[in-house]
């Protein structure tokens, strides 16, 4: 499994999750978990996703998501899970 964390931060609006999930589905990225919270008036969403079935490389998906984020007024980042797991887990 190639686990990654996708975060979406921005002003809340209709269809954000739909647009991100559509892109992921088209590229065979499996979403394992979604959670969201509102902090400081901003919409924060985190997805745990698995890239192992996707034919696209990590870097390409990451670039596509950045672009998608810009088009819907959000900041979308994709990072490998290890940076969070290592920092917060023994």
């Amino acid at each position, binding site marked *: 499994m190639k686990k990654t964390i996708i975060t979406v931060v921005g002003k809340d609006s209709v269809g954000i999750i739909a647009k991100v999930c559509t892109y992921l589905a088209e590229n065979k990225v499996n979403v394992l978990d979604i959670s969201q919270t509102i*902090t400081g008036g901003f919409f924060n969403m985190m997805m745990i996703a698995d890239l192992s079935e996707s034919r696209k490389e990590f870097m390409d998906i*990451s670039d596509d998501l950045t672009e998608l984020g810009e088009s819907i007024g959000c900041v979308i980042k994709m990072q490998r899970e290890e940076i969070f797991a290592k920092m917060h887990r023994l």
Partner: protein
Amino acid sequence: MVNIHEVLETNEMIEKENLDVRTITLGISLLDCADNNLDRLNEKIYEKITTKAAKLVETGKDIEKEFGIPIVNKRISVTPVSLVGASACKTSDDFVTIAKTLDEAAKKVGVNFIGGYSALVSKGMTKADENLIRSIPKALSETEMVCSSVNLGSTKTGLDMDAIRLMGEVVHETAEFTKDRDSIGCAKLVVFCNAPDDNPFMAGAFHGVTEADAIINVGVSGPGVVKRALEKIHGEDFEVLCETIKKTAFKITRVGQLVAKEASERLGIPFGIIDLSLAPTPAVGDSIADIFEEMGLERAGAPGTTAALALLNDQVKKGGVMASSYVGGLSGAFIPVSEDQGMIRAVNDGALTLEKLEAMTCVCSVGLDMVAVPGDTKPSTIAGIIADEMAIGMVNQKTTAVRIIPVIGKSVGDTVEFGGLLGYAPVMNVNKFGCEGFINRKGRIPAPIHSFKN
């Protein structure tokens, strides 16, 4: 599984609190390049560096993107050049050709500094060591990326006062050679007592002779993250203060360990150490002095600063040690003046003097760092400042260093602009009383009694 709060906390550290990996430094041994023909030696050095480090920068950038953590610098350290060039270099100018080769190799692979134009003379100098040391002003003025360091003493050997006297002159001459650029050559020159073999930070990085053929060392940072964590526990007691620093240092270091392991795997080069450092930058919010202010000092340099720094340095090590499998280098809190907004403010406000800085170096990770002094400071006075700092390292069994910049044409009250990560610095006052009689004595200061542990 990680949760959203952990993810947001990490990303906040990166985006708002300047968390980054300060440097991935590739140490490369040049011992197998040694040759008695200077041209051949230079060819072999260029070949080895450009081969070993061919993918360093690209790999660093890939890791940066995949993990979403900035890796500010990608650098190279090499075997002290006085050893590598000993049989080929008959003059100081011969050594300068090696500096130029290092510079070209660094430019070719895209790193921003290359360290190791160095000599280890803690007990005495060979002819090659002396030639290299005398070549430093020219080497640093005719190259861009090359950093130079000289180890002048250790707890085990005592202090080489002949080399210290010579370095007083070399620092001054380096300032003269680069006076058209605010004596910036001195920002790339550092002297040490007890220099570590595996330091990834410039200007003092070199690849020690105790090291393997190539090794990855990583320096972490994050003063902004510590400051922010302390804001959240404002006014709490020392136990809470210390625990908070320790936990924060652990988190910062875990990121460094992850990056180091990843870089090592991708480059096929063994992982050496993590340098657990709090290294400030001139960016707002990336300051060690700001941490002191958050702890309750009006300015860095106020009474209590040495205690605050001692506490900070120790907790950073305690938190970091458990986060990494191998720790080394300089590890601790750096207190450079020009690279830290809060330190600059403290000097400008009259809170921080050279003497207080010297006291602080007894408990910080390194020493007098990026300190600008008047250009007319005598070479013997510079040697005296170096000797004092080296003595602190020797007696306290710690690494100490001096990176001092006598800025030609400037005096107390002026400001010097070095640019980039080197920042800017107010010119500090130096004690006007001389020390020639002491510095001009020949020979060595013996090792202290507590060094004889056999």
